[in-house]
């Protein structure tokens, strides 16, 4: 080393830079970063070189090519003339839909089950325990197969569809219900809905201020409900119900018309929700158990009823324990949605797989998969961290 002894104020003594723990620390960190970068660089360079040597096309230009295949479930317009890029977008949106729907359902179900496991009622408690133990201990793929092959595929064929009320049908091709078609002047309805939500927020704020000032309570919940449902209904009546329904009809092969939820989506959505709910139930139970018993006793000493004590004292404190592990469950659910491929739901992995095979661009597609799932997970995590910070105990 070319370094000389340089005066260094470590306890007044003179030490070589070579032996300075701080300098050494930085030196080794730099060394590791350089080595890592070099390694990644080498891998990438090697791959590009070998792809070239094997005459395999590379790069992302293929994304603008014509897809040539159809996708069964799509939120946006897609046909075989669309590009590969759009196909991947269709898959991504399908992943999002099933993940968001699954997260909402799993949270509600998991919360109820978690509270149920702590119920005073023996039957409820045991049913919830059995549920949790069964679904927590089966691999998610089997839960998906259970719904797809076990439950949904034993439904009758389209010709013998089970007729449900309101013109809906259930058969092995999915669940069909009438599609609402909005007519002229229906724009007033969402406007009324937004107005209702805004007014409810205002009422809730006023009620809280009033309670703070005078101690009098106001039935906020019922008022809000009336505003949010009542105003749009009023708008509908005022415009003379400008809507019609497209009913599913029987045709040669399937039912046509109406809105169809396909069994692939149903199976995946139900399986992910039921599977993750079992884990969320345990997290919620742990959270509630984690709140000291003294808190419940103190609230009943203050005269709060059991329901109020749970809602106002226990749950807010339990949430602080619940949120961080809940984040992991949400991430797991999103990633588990890639099991869709086993039952043919066109999520990002399934559609990406088709694109991969039609174009042979394996590395590019794998990179897209990884970036998208990483991005989704980071966004979920960031949101949950924000929520966690908001819910954390504010110390004064």
């Amino acid at each position: 080393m070319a370094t000389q002894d340089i005066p260094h104020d470590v306890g007044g003594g003179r030490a070589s830079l070579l032996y300075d723990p701080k300098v050494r620390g930085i030196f080794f960190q730099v060394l590791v970063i350089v080595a890592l970068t070099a390694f990644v660089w080498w891998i990438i360079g090697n791959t590009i070189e070998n792809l070239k040597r094997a005459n395999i096309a590379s790069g992302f230009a293929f994304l603008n090519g014509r897809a040539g295949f159809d996708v069964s479930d799509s939120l946006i317009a897609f046909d075989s003339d669309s590009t590969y890029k759009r196909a991947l977008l269709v898959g991504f949106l399908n992943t999002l839909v099933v993940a968001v729907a699954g997260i909402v359902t799993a949270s509600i179900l998991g919360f109820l089950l978690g509270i149920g496991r702590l119920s005073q009622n023996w039957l409820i408690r045991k049913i919830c325990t059995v549920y949790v133990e069964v679904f927590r201990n089966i691999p998610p793929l089997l839960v998906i197969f259970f719904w797809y092959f076990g439950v949904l595929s034993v439904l009758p064929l389209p010709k013998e569809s089970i007729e449900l009320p309101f013109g809906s049908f259930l058969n092995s091709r999915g669940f069909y219900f009438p599609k609402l078609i909005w007519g002229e002047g229906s724009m007033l309805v969402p406007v009324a809905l937004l107005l209702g939500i805004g007014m409810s927020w205002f009422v809730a704020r006023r009620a809280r201020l009033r309670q703070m000032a005078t101690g009098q309570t106001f039935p906020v919940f019922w008022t809000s409900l009336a505003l949010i449902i009542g105003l749009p209904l009023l708008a509908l009546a005022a415009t003379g119900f400008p809507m019609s329904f497209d009913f599913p009809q029987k045709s040669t092969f399937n039912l046509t018309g109406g809105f169809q939820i396909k069994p692939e989506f149903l199976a995946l959505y139900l399986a992910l929700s039921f599977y993750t709910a079992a884990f969320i139930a345990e997290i919620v139970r742990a959270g509630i158990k984690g709140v000291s018993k003294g808190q419940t006793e103190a609230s009943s000493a203050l005269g709060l009823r059991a329901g109020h004590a749970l809602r106002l004292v226990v749950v807010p404190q339990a949430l602080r324990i619940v949120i961080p592990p809940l984040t992991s469950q949400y991430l797991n659910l999103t990633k588990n949605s890639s099991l869709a491929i086993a039952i043919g739901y066109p999520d990002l992995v399934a559609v990406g797989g088709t694109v991969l095979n039609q174009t042979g661009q394996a590395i590019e597609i794998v990179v897209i998969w990884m970036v998208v799932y990483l991005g989704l997970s980071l966004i979920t995590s960031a949101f949950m961290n924000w929520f966690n910070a908001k819910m954390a105990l504010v110390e004064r």
Partner: protein
Amino acid sequence: MKYIISGILGAATLGMVATAASAGTLEDVKAKGFLQCGVSTGLAGFSAPNDKGDWQGLDADFCRAVAAAVFGDGTKVKFTPLSAKERFTALQSGEIDLLSRNTTWTINRDTALGLNFVGVTYFDGQGFMINAKKLPGVNSALQLSGAAVCVQTGTTTELNLADYFKANKMEYNPVVFEKLEEVNAAYDAGRCDVYTTDQSGLYGIRLTLGSPDDHVVLPEIISKEPLGPAVRQGDDKWYHIVKWAYFALLTAEELGITQANVEEMKASGNPEVKRVLGTETDTKIGTDLGLGNDWVVNIVKAVGNYGEVFERNVGQGSPLKIARGINALWTKGGLQYAPPIR
């Protein structure tokens, strides 16, 4: 997740193996002592394990023919079952030496995917199968508008299907699975009205369904599906060995050399037969390929000639009972034609 991981592994090995592969596939295969051959996960008549676990079928026998040409022993093959999606990565990455898996030869696969197709071992076309019991009035593919169609992902079938329905202005609802067994199960369970794949495949799949007699294959053939074996680009020696193994099967049939009579034929007075079987004096018929001069003898001893392979696996000697049709030799009005071995 499994698929992502295998994708990454495939991509990673791709980065490393190409160097090893350029050493020469023939040398690699000889050093290993066996041929690693990619086949389907189970398509009756082409590549499917029998009740003893031995791989049977036209594609499997082609693997044996190449092994026989290299080693003089048709049993020195290890089979790798691959889904439609995995097959090209497996070949590109060097996991297999030869892909013999009812794969359609297209320009895209021959160029951008870095593959070389050696020939057409089976001329096929895409067809449709329906359950005639459930859909009594349907006897043409043009009546299929509105149907749910089961199809395997990552195939040319998937693309032809989209083209056909679009060209005929019909609606359909694709139900797409990755594995052949999943498509079969979904079709058998009534998830879709129509099953589409190569017509030869439909005949094979029909036999595996719950009640085969209920199902009929519709007459329309909507595409050309030339199925053949493929190797990696950049290794001409290996490419020639595999290509000429295929031509040897055809030539043997043309000259009437069979598994039963190949030893007698060696003593034949016909100069062409002598040349092909490597009994000509000072012959270089095999050494130029990097093989023994008796390579054709070994192939025919292992699997028979093309006609025998065909009849045993998909023709009259099999449950599929597919007629030779366009797969007959050119001398009998078919398309199978081999350049001369000389």
